[in-house]
């Protein structure tokens, strides 16, 4: 469950380049739902996603993700909470191109003290599930956009996090791959995960699998 | 093999090499230098030697132990230092 109450986010507070990205956001997202944050570029979708994803703390207000109050969490605990709870799929994928596909996927496991053998096993399960076995040992910089996205999805799932966040996931994909992505999300929802997708792509916003659409305009959320 | 193990092997190899070199030197000390050490004592005492024979180009490099601070200047008013060997030695301390 995700709860936001009167959440504001101001960047560079007190400085000449101060910018308010979110205004008084109130939001509740139920567990095991698939939600779309819809809004134009610069509307605050990514900021809202970053707060839900425990990457940024809110400037004011209350934000609770999976039972933890984010505003009160020190950076260290926020990282631990994020590691356990959130799987993030970035717009730019943010894959390390020099590492192999398998190494990219198992990156979140390194600081947890998981052995190389165990990492390979866990990554292999996801690699096979997402159909990229033939690229397992390839450097990630040498694979296609669609395969990259599957690597990003696999990395987001490696710790079996209950919440998956995706920021403009179809921005660099064609229609076919976009539909494949959405189907993967639907399958994940069936396994009990909570999926939140930030997008203004009609392919996503008009998909019947989306339980709820949250419109966001100029940092303000319309929860109608 | 994981990279940490490979790296560990390289480090271990270097440590083993260093240890072997250390014991090699100890062995050479025992078998080489000790038996002939008394000859050096005889020569030093018998001739009243005060210095090792290293750089023979100037008095203050050949006999630094019995040179004084002005020795480098004694050869000629315009004599320059014997470089580079002269720069190897610090000035004697009285």
């Amino acid at each position: 469950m995700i709860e936001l109450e009167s959440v504001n986010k101001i960047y560079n507070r007190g400085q000449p380049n101060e910018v308010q990205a979110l205004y008084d956001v109130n939001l509740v997202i139920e567990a095991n739902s698939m939600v779309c944050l819809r809004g134009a570029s610069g509307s605050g979708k990514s900021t809202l996603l970053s707060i839900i994803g425990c990457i940024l703390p809110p400037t004011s207000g209350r934000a609770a993700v999976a039972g933890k109050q984010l505003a009160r969490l020190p950076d260290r605990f926020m990282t631990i909470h994020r590691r356990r709870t959130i799987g993030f799929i970035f717009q730019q994928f943010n894959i390390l191109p020099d590492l192999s596909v398998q190494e990219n996927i198992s990156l979140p496991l390194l600081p947890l003290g998981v052995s190389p053998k165990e990492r390979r096993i866990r990554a292999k399960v996801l690699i096979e599930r997402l159909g990229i076995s033939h690229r397992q040992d390839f450097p990630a910089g040498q694979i296609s956009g669609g395969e990259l996205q599957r690597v990003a999805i696999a990395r987001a799932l490696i710790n079996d996090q209950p919440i998956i966040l995706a920021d403009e996931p179809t921005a660099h994909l064609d229609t076919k791959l976009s539909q494949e992505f959405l189907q993967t999300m639907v399958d994940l929802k069936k396994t009990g995960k909570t999926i939140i997708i930030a997008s203004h792509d009609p392919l996503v916003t008009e998909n019947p699998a989306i339980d709820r659409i949250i419109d966001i305009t100029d940092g303000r959320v319309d929860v109608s | 093999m994981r990279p940490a193990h490979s790296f560990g092997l390289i480090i271990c190899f270097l440590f083993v090499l260093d240890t072997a070199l250390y014991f090699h030197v100890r062995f050479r000390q025992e078998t080489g230098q000790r038996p002939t050490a008394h000859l050096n004592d005889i020569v030093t005492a018998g001739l009243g030697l005060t210095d090792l024979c290293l750089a023979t180009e100037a008095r203050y490099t050949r006999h630094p132990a019995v040179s004084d601070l002005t020795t480098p200047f004694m050869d000629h008013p315009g004599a320059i230092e014997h470089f580079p060997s002269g720069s190897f030695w610090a000035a004697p301390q009285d």
Partner: protein
Amino acid sequence: MNPALEKHLNLLDYALSSLWRRKLKNLGIITVFAGVIFLVASFQILTSSLTSTAETMLAKTPEIVIQKMSAGRQESIPLSYLNRLDGVFGIRAAVPRIWGYYFDETSGANYTVMGVERKAMPEGRRLEMAIEGSYPEAGQGGAALGREVAANMKLAGRRTFSLFRPDLSLKTFRITGIFAESTDLLTADLLVTGLDDARDLFTIPDSLATDLLVYVTNPNEISTIAKKIAARLPDTRVLTRPQILKTYKVVFGWRSGFASICLLAALAAFAILAWDKASGLSAEEKREIGILKVLGWQTTDILTLRFWESLAVAGLAFLIGCTTAYLHVLFLEGSLFRPVLLGWSVIHPSLKILPVFAAGDVLLIFTLSVLPYLAATVIPAWRCSTISPDAAIK
């Protein structure tokens, strides 16, 4: 395996893989770093070894040496000064000595010519043990040569040679023996002859000597007796055995010119490295840190990663540098520094010395090399790892 240990091994794996991905650059850094450490360590090992060798070989150096000084210059000492030592209690023997340098114009070599009355010297009667042949008897024109002197003269089987007196007349010597190879570091350039023969060669009057060697009854009284001698002979310079030995403790000090060059080169190299690292991480490196943080890596994990990277580079360079320095002195006789040490010398004694690399020296070089590098690489990583991951991956 313990998860904490496995975590560090994982981070080390990642660090090493990261270094290997940029292998050309990192191998270059390791090579330069190891080269600088090799330079400093070689110098340190060579000088420590020479100091240690000197301490061992010169342990039996004369207890007191008296030189006459005039206008700041050393000159021959009158033998009448021996009479003035009569009243000094504790002196066992005072022995005059003639010695000086002979410049061989043909080869450009400097020989140290020495004449002593061996019967008056400690161990004088046993000198034959160190000579392949016999010790030259007084007044017979004999000479025992150091090995390098014999080689330099190109005798080709001859048993005699001649040297010029100051008036350019020739004095002929007969070779009685060659000093043993194991005494090379003491005798390589020596030409030892009888006291009168040395006096004849240098045309030093009978009433003068080059210096006086004084032996005392009680070695613990050396300083006291030296002070008394200095009081009786105020125009002399009185050197004691501890002073002579102390020379070799400090002669290769860090303030000597060549040591400063080595040290400055090392410091300059580290300053350049540190400046390069401290000028900040590249955009790519910042992005990588941002991605890792978003994936759940903590600031401490990132710092540990950078620490392992730096330690791998610095540690490997340190071990390679020190090991090669040790091999350089042990098997190559410090051949890189030999031309510097020998300078323009024509006589080249062998530097078959056993390397001495004290734990203190190792620690000093480690502190001057590895620690600054760790600081220079981990500090910018700390600065960047504390930035928000959101900012890093935008």
